[in-house]
């Protein structure tokens, strides 16, 4: 990536800072990696030396169009409350609300990126009763529009790029920025909710280490058990996008591997789930079934697979570790 650098400004709106923290989960070290990729942080609130008036001056220069900006990265929802004032978040030292600042800077950026589900859709900052009138940059929960409006396009012609997730995988962020710097991400590369398709064209379920339990509907009934988490423990991995189970998270295995439900954190509105770790049911049938599967088929297949469940799978499903090991093939691989 010799030649010009791709200059990005990162601002933290109403969030927890966790997207920034998750981004540090890089084997080689984030700063060295960004340097190698030709991506330069014009300013980042957690890492940059500049503070106070130096930052205010930089933002003003960008806002006036004097300082070119390749990408504006917003972490956190934008608060419009209380009562439409935006006063629930001011940028210190400016007397201005983040609401006003994001609106002013977005049209100046080559592209606008929402990092995390708060910036994308409102996320947990917008959780019911949404005390401070939070919104994502171009979605308010599931509704297209959000802060910037449905007609908004960045200077490069793209709508807001939504790196959803709470927090998103560091790879989603770095790969999206690398693609934007290379001009390799176009509108066809985004799904209907603005998420890059390279991670959003998968379901979180794909690659789950509990797949055999899912196939036989051998379900865990209590936290810590090895079985499938969908039937009883709230798992939404079959309904949620993300290549989560095809990546390593913090050197471990991710949510379902660690024994707890996918809570659909890449989806608009996930924050309003009631009972994150309990599966809602009607007449004993889970309400949330895999996205594109006819209900009758699912029920028929579930009944069939439950009746065919090997004892090994059934017993392991309700234990916190393998209690019945698989019988290996005989040595040499041949019969007899």
């Amino acid at each position, binding site marked *: 990536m010799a030649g010009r650098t791709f200059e990005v400004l990162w601002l933290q709106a109403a969030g927890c*800072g966790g997207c920034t923290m998750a981004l540090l989960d890089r084997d080689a070290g984030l700063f060295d990696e960004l340097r190698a990729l030709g991506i330069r942080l014009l300013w980042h*609130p*957690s890492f940059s030396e500049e503070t106070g008036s130096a930052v205010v001056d930089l933002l003003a220069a960008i806002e006036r169009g004097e300082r070119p900006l390749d990408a504006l990265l917003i972490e956190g929802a934008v608060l419009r409350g209380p009562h439409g004032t935006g006063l629930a*978040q001011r940028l*210190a030292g400016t007397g201005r609300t983040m609401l006003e600042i994001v609106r002013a800077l977005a049209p100046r950026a080559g592209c606008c990126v929402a990092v995390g589900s708060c910036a994308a859709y409102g996320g947990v900052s917008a959780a019911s009763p949404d005390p401070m009138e939070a919104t994502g940059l171009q979605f308010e929960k599931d509704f297209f529009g959000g802060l910037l409006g449905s007609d908004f396009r960045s200077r490069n012609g793209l709508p807001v790029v939504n790196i959803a997730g709470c927090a998103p995988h560091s790879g989603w962020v770095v790969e999206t920025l690398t693609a934007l710097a290379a001009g390799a991400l176009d509108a066809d590369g985004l799904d209907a909710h603005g998420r890059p398709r390279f991670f959003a064209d998968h379901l979180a379920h794909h690659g789950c280490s509990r797949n055999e339990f899912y196939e036989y509907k051998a379900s865990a009934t209590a936290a810590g058990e090895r079985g499938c988490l969908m039937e009883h423990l709230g798992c939404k991995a079959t309904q949620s996008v993300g290549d989560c189970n095809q990546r390593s*998270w*913090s050197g471990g295995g991710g949510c379902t591997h660690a024994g*707890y439900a996918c809570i659909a954190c890449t989806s608009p509105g996930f924050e309003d789930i009631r009972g994150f770790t309990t599966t809602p049911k009607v007449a004993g049938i889970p309400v949330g079934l895999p996205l594109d599967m006819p209900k009758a088929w699912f029920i028929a297949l579930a009944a069939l697979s439950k009746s065919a469940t090997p004892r090994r799978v059934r017993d392991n499903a309700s234990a916190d570790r393998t209690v019945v090991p698989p019988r290996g093939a005989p040595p040499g691989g041949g019969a007899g």
Partner: protein
Amino acid sequence: MTRLVVGPFNRVEGDLELTLDVADGAVAAARVSAPLFRGFERILVGRPPEDALAIVPRICGICSVSQSMAAAAALRAAMGVTPPPNGGLAADLAHAAENIADHLSHFYLFFMPDFCRAEYAGRPWFEAITARFKAVEGSAAGDLLPARARLLHVVGILAGKWPHALAFRPGGTTRAVDLGETMRLVATVAQLRRFLERTLFAAPLDAVAALADPAALNAFAEASSSRGGDFAAFLRIAGDLDLQSLGRGTTALMSYGAYRGGGEPLFRAGVFDPATGEVRPVAGADIREDTSSAWLAGGPAHPAEADTHPAPDKPGAYGWSKAPRLAGEPVEVGALARQVVDGLPLARALIDGGGSNVLARVVARLVEVARVALAMERWVGALDPGQPFSTAAPPVSDAAADGLVEAARGSLGHWITIQDGEIARYQIISPTTWNFSPRDSAGVPGPLEQALVGTAVGERGAGAAAIQHVVRSFDPCMVCTAH
């Protein structure tokens, strides 16, 4: 008298605004403002109690496990369950990994880059320190970030990911690690020791944990000048700039007690009174949150009886943070408070006479890193992969309980009231709510506001590095502060 406004204030978690009254080149009065309010205490009400475990970690991306631990502790008290030993150890290990990662992030990414500011050009150490600690560009971040990412594999292995894991439950943790994963933990903790002993301390962890007094600290700094070590480099700067005289605090120091997974806490609970040198128990019933200077309605109340209602037009208020008080007084919390309350001789000696200060806060944080890293090795060794990590927790329909833990930045409390199987009230007091509290109804400033008074700013005014050092010595987490 000149009034200065400082902000945005970066290299902290979140943002903060300072208003400083300066007279004769020094701070005469300080006000600190938390500029963000999301309303988590409203968001939690009406939800099933266990949903707090999904919501509260998202208060804070840098102390996510701490928030989970406080909620799990409160629910545990409400449900009356006790996790099996493995569950307590696994949670403490994950929590320790987060806390050490936070301490290291603070030192390398947030605090040290301020010594690379142009204001210090000409100091004998300036060029070497700038090459090492310059924000984003210095060589230290290149050493730290891979080591920090590896350390957080502890959370990945035990809890799936960091931040925002749902593995921490009232009954224990959700992943029963096997022998192979336990050996990965052994390797990860060994890599942590290697980083600390080669790069941060350039000395054995035991030697750092055993530093007994300021004389030993000085000897350590000088002896290390030939062999390196980032801690010693800081100590030499601290001597040159007299950081022990900067950011003085004279309030009491509080700790709820840390790492209780094995029963007795690793660091004990208590309140240290600097006037008498004595430690008394934490009287939780004496905690009140005062809203006089906050854009919030309501009078002072105990968190089990308090509520949170925005009042953005309130006259005289200057931020979103409440002002917690213990028996009517502000208290300082954090690694220094933990080590002083626990009785670490070095920590006690560093505040003897003049109170808490920038040097003592940073030293306590790093010595705590050594002490906790040693404890992590013991805890990994105590895991028994053949035994359970969690136990069943019964549903609860009506209860009131609290969960008091120590986050990296200090005392974190959650107070929950459950009625008819739903959360009826949920209140949170975070470490930085204590440290960066605004003035209360009696006009008494919070610990940071007190510590800034007297800081010399000279002609640099709001741009003086001394202001940056004092604020960052507390390692504030502003997203937690008003939540």
